[in-house]
Every structure is written in structure tokens, then in C-alpha cells.
């Protein structure tokens, strides 16, 4: 592979090049999905870490923030992995006991996972196990759902991911037990992890996922996670992501998803952690009569920066999507919302509505809203709106006049503001568990 001329490569970019050179694909272009990796790394190297002159990263300059990169994470010992998983906060919620896929240091740890009750309906395999020769046909499809999405961080993950899981949900299955993908980092040094998951939900299946990225230390980890999700026709998928990484960490998470005919998809991103976070979703509505919702609840303070980026492509007619972002920003924190709705030429009767509301709690905080609509069909309903405001004085007075002290009243109103997005997921168990986490975060606020 020819070296392209690279000027002003940052130490982080140099480290990534070395990292790739040390992998099998980097050396030979071979190995499982080797060609795809080599191609992805070429694409990444062509652009480097995205920076503010790249439109999609205008407000989230990763090149400037990630001058250096912590070392790639090594697999954790069993004891360390156990300790890290035990240190993850317990989700409250009456009787809520999801199945657990444990991801420690970016790697699937089957022996610390709990997959009871999924037999026959859900198969879960680690990539490393598949690379070693297991013949799951799903492996051949990894990468296919991310194809067509041109994003440097996704390309970087494709080039470098070590492990993660491939999940297949059998067509027609109704999986009663929610499945959590719990990501933690073990050890006492900052590391970089790049987990990758590929999830295939078969036709007519119903399943709920809870993707968690939890802090078990205050180390400045870097995460660059990617998930490919296929929602087949008539399936119903609920996916909630909780990003609660250490306040010194950098978190980038990308989801690419395709949604089939008459499928229902509900997604929620709750952002509480990381110094710099970007959660991005690239969703493609590929079948008619899809109902999709994307909610985001963000509460950040201090010097935190949180970016929620969503690109939804309505490629076919009669799709309904709703995008709702709620951000609460305190101190000198900055919240970024970029929402883009593309309606393709034949996607008539599309109904897509996007709303972004920010609650600003301090003089020094900031909320950036960048809504974009690109509509090439003529019979559609699309709307977007954005508001930024402060806590409603009248509501605050109402609560205080009932005896609730100012601080507690403010907290209640913040919770009341965010809950609209949290409940948008439409699953009581998950929204209860996550609102519990939100409430604890507000107590510290």
C-alpha cells in the first residue's frame, strides 16, 4: 500500500497509522474482512481526524481535541474485567433485569455475560471467535450496513476494531428480556477502545437493546464505537444508548441502521458523560410505512461538549419519522445538535418532524442547533424547529410557592424538560431505568 503524502500529521494520527500497520490487514491486506479494513483505513488516512473545516464536524473538532491518543486497550484479565463490570452503576427500575453482553476493553467477554432466556431467538458471537473460524454467515455481512456512509470515524473503526459482537435475532421472535451491551474499561491507565457490533434483527422480530458506556474510573479514555443495525421488515426494535463515560473521556459512537418495510424503530441517546462526546446515527428508511423515532436527552456541565448528529434518509414513500432533541447545558458546556433529514425523489408522503430544545442554565454555556432538510419529493410533510431558553420563572415560582426550595424546584423542572425525550423511547422499563440515572446526574449538578 502506497504511503500518501501526509503533512502535519498529528501524534494521534501517527499513532493510528502505526496501530493499523501492526494489524494483520495493515500488514497484508488479508485476514477476515481484510480488504474492507484496508480500504477503510485508506479513506480515513485521506481525511485524517475530522476537524472544524469539515462541515459535518464544524462544531466538534476531533483533530484539535485528540492531539494524542491513549494506547490501544489490551484484553483485561478476568479479575480486572469482573471488577470493572461490578463497578458499573446498577440501573434502577422495578424488576428490570436485562440480559447482559459484557464488553470490557472493547472485547466481548462471554464468561461474564448473561444470555439466559435468549436461546433460539438470539444468537451472540464475538468477532474474535468468528475470525478464528466459526462459520456464521452473518460475518460475511459485516460492513454491508455501513457501506455508503462516508464518515472518517466510522472508517477508522472499520479499519481497527478488535472485537465486539454479531447479534442475530431470529425472524418472528419476540424477545421478552431486554438485552444490554455494557461497555466498561478495566485497568488503571487511559486506553483507546474501538468496539464494533453488528446486529441483524430478522423479519417481524421484536427486541429491545440498551447500549451502555459506563465510567468505572475517572481516566481519559477514548472510545470510537460503531454499530451496524439491520431492522428487517415488520420488525420492532427499541434501542437506547446511555453514554456515561468518565468526565475526562472522549467518546465517539456511530450507529448505521437500515429500516425495512412496516418496521418500527425507536431510538434514544442519553448523554451524561465524557468531556467530548459525539453520538451519530445514520439511518436509512428503505421500506415503506416505517415508523421511526429518534430522541436525545443530554445533560452536560463543566467543560463538557456533547454532539448529537443524526442523518436520516427517507428513500421510499410513506415513512414517518420523529426526531426530538432535548439538551440541558450548564456552566461552560456546549451542546451541539445536527439533524439532517433527506427525502429522496420518490419518497412521497414522508412525514418527518424534528425539534430541538435547549435549556441553558448558565451565562457561559452554549447550544448549537443545525437542522437541515433536503427534500426532493413534492408531497411530504417535514418540519423542524429549535428553541433555546432558560428555566421558566413562572413554573419555578409555582413550585416554590408550594414549599419546594429553589434548587430542588429547578432540578424538578430540568427533569420535567428532559423526561419528554426519555419517554419518547416508548418502553417503560427502559425509560424508568434511564430516568433514574438522569435523576442521579441532576443531584450532582
Amino acid at each position: 500500500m502506497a504511503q500518501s503524502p501526509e503533512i502535519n500529521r498529528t501524534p494521534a494520527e501517527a499513532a493510528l497509522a502505526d496501530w493499523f500497520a501492526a494489524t494483520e490487514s495493515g500488514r497484508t491486506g488479508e485476514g477476515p474482512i481484510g480488504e474492507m479494513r484496508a480500504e477503510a483505513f485508506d479513506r480515513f488516512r485521506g481525511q485524517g481526524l475530522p476537524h472544524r473545516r469539515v462541515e459535518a464536524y464544524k462544531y466538534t473538532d476531533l483533530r484539535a481535541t485528540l492531539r494524542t491518543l491513549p494506547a490501544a486497550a489490551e484484553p483485561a484479565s478476568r479479575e480486572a474485567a469482573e471488577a470493572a463490570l461490578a463497578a458499573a452503576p446498577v440501573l434502577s427500575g422495578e424488576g428490570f433485569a436485562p440480559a447482559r453482553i459484557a464488553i470490557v476493553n472493547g472485547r466481548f467477554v462471554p464468561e461474564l455475560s448473561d444470555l439466559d432466556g435468549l436461546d433460539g431467538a438470539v444468537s451472540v458471537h464475538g468477532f474474535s471467535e468468528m475470525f478464528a473460524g466459526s462459520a456464521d454467515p452473518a460475518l460475511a455481512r459485516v460492513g454491508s450496513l455501513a457501506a455508503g456512509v462516508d464518515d472518517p470515524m466510522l472508517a477508522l473503526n472499520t479499519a481497527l476494531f478488535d472485537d465486539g459482537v454479531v447479534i442475530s435475532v431470529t425472524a418472528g421472535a419476540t424477545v421478552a428480556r431486554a438485552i444490554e451491551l455494557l461497555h466498561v474499561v478495566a485497568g488503571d491507565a487511559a486506553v483507546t477502545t474501538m468496539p464494533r457490533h453488528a446486529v441483524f434483527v430478522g423479519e417481524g422480530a421484536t427486541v429491545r437493546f440498551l447500549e451502555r458506556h459506563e465510567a468505572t474510573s475517572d481516566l481519559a479514555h477514548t472510545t470510537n464505537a460503531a454499530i451496524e443495525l439491520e431492522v428487517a421488515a415488520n420488525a420492532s426494535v427499541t434501542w437506547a444508548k446511555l453514554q456515561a463515560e468518565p468526565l475526562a473521556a472522549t467518546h465517539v459512537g456511530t450507529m448505521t441502521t437500515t429500516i425495512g418495510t412496516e418496521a418500527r424503530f425507536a431510538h434514544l441517546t442519553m448523554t451524561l458523560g465524557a468531556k467530548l462526546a459525539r453520538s451519530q446515527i445514520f439511518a436509512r428508511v428503505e421500506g415503506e410505512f416505517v415508523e421511526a423515532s429518534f430522541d436525545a436527552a443530554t445533560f452536560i456541565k463543566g467543560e463538557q461538549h456533547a454532539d448529537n448528529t443524526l442523518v436520516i434518509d427517507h428513500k421510499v414513500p410513506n415513512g414517518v419519522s420523529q426526531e426530538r432533541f432535548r439538551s440541558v447545558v450548564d456552566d461552560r458546556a456546549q451542546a451541539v445538535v445536527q439533524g439532517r433529514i433527506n427525502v429522496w425523489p420518490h419518497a412521497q408522503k414522508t412525514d418527518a418532524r424534528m425539534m430541538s430544545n435547549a435549556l441553558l442554565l448558565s451565562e457561559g454555556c452554549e447550544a448549537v442547533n443545525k437542522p437541515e432538510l433536503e427534500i426532493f419529493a413534492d408531497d411530504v410533510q417535514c418540519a423542524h424547529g429549535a428553541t433555546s431558553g432558560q428555566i421558566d420563572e413562572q413554573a419555578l415560582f409555582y413550585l416554590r410557592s408550594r414549599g419546594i426550595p429553589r434548587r430542588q424546584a429547578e432540578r424538578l423542572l430540568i427533569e420535567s424538560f428532559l423526561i419528554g425525550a426519555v419517554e419518547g423511547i416508548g418502553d417503560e422499563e427502559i425509560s424508568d431505568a434511564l430516568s433514574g440515572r438522569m435523576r442521579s446526574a441532576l443531584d450532582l449538578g
Partner: protein
Amino acid sequence: MTKMLQIKNLHARIDEREILKGIDLEVGAGEVHAIMGPNGSGKSTLSHVLAGRDEYEVTEGQVLFNGVDLLELEPEERAAAGVFLAFQYPIEVPGVANMTFLKTSLNAQRKERGEDAMSTPEFMKLVKGAAEKLNISQEMLRRPVNVGFSGGEKKRNEILQMAVLDPKLAVLDETDSGLDIDALKIVADGVNALRSPDRSFVVITHYQRLLEHIVPDVVHVLAGGRIVKTGGKELALELEARGYADFVEAA
């Protein structure tokens, strides 16, 4: 005996505009005082100043509540001291269940007063009893505060809060506005059930009809930011017959 509420020469303004221009009012324990007056006379301003809304600036005068300078207290401290304002336009609080709101309010007040939190069974019993009298369903108690409530439901909910929080002084700000006859009766019955020798009411209203149900001991006419006439309950009837025109001119 000292009066429960003593308002002396109270002046208040908002945005440089003086609205209360020297109110004098004394309310004794157990008394019900009605304050009537034309629109814009300062009725709602008075109620908000008593509850502590800080957008109004008090420029002169004094408000003593059981001998304590009320104007020195934060709204939540006034509530804990026993002042309750039933809002003309109750606020919606999405995501906070009515029941949770009641419990949070009650226990915040008890904490401020140095009392223990009320036990859940005791609280449930209290709310259930009060809700039944006001025809408030369990479903309404579970719903977020005032969200999706009709005008009448919101007003009944205010009275429920009053019943649960058990104030010493209740100020009802145009509680009758937007109520049909049936709802008015439920609300009035709720208020009457709470009348006691230790509890006083200031009932602010534009119309006399509420006072047919909540019969006042004293009626005041507020016009142009001052109390221009005080009389017995028959004054309300007189106003109903003759209107406020005389007073608007007088002020």
C-alpha cells in the same frame, strides 16, 4: 389580639409601573375576606406579592404574618410558614406526577419547619380523603401535574394541594374564573370544608357568584391599587347590581 395578616401601606410595582399604591388590610384568624375589583385594579398583583413572586418590587409598606415580616421570606419559606396561593392559571409540569409533586411539596415544608417527613401510608390516606371530596380520580393523581387537565380540573387540583398542605392563610386568586356552575360548587365546597377558626382566607374575585358559595365575613373593593371600600357580605351584592364604575372614577 394581633391579626394573622397585617398589610400596612403596601406599595408594589412592576417594570417601573406602580400597581399597588398603599394597601391596608387586616385579616384575623378564621376570617374569610373577599377582595373584589375591576380588571387591572391590582388584585392578582396583591396575591403574587403575598406569595413572594419576585418580579414585583415592593417599594414601601409592610406585610406581617403572625407577627413575622413576610416580605423578608423566600416563596418556599412563606409556604412553610403557612401561606398558600391558589393560582388563577395553574402551571403544567410535564413528567412530574401529581402525587409525587404533592409529596415533595408537603415534605419540603415539613423539613423547613423541622418536622419529620410524613410516612407514605399516612400521606396516601390524606391525599385519598382530600381527592375524594374534590371528585379527583386516582388517574388524575397519577398524571403529570396539570398536564392535559381541563380548566375545572386544574382549579380542583389547586384546592387539593391546599387541602394536603394545610396552610394557615389561603389566598385564592380568581379561583372561579373559567369554572362552570358544577365545578364552582365542587371548588367552593372544598374550600368551605377547610374553613376553621385557625385558617384564614383571602378570596380574590371579579364576580359575586363565588361569594354565594364561599360566604365572606368581610368584602373589600380594590380599585386603582387601593382598597376604596370595605363592608359586609352585602357589599358584594351591591357591586353586582351597580358595577365598579363608581369606584373606578373614585380611584
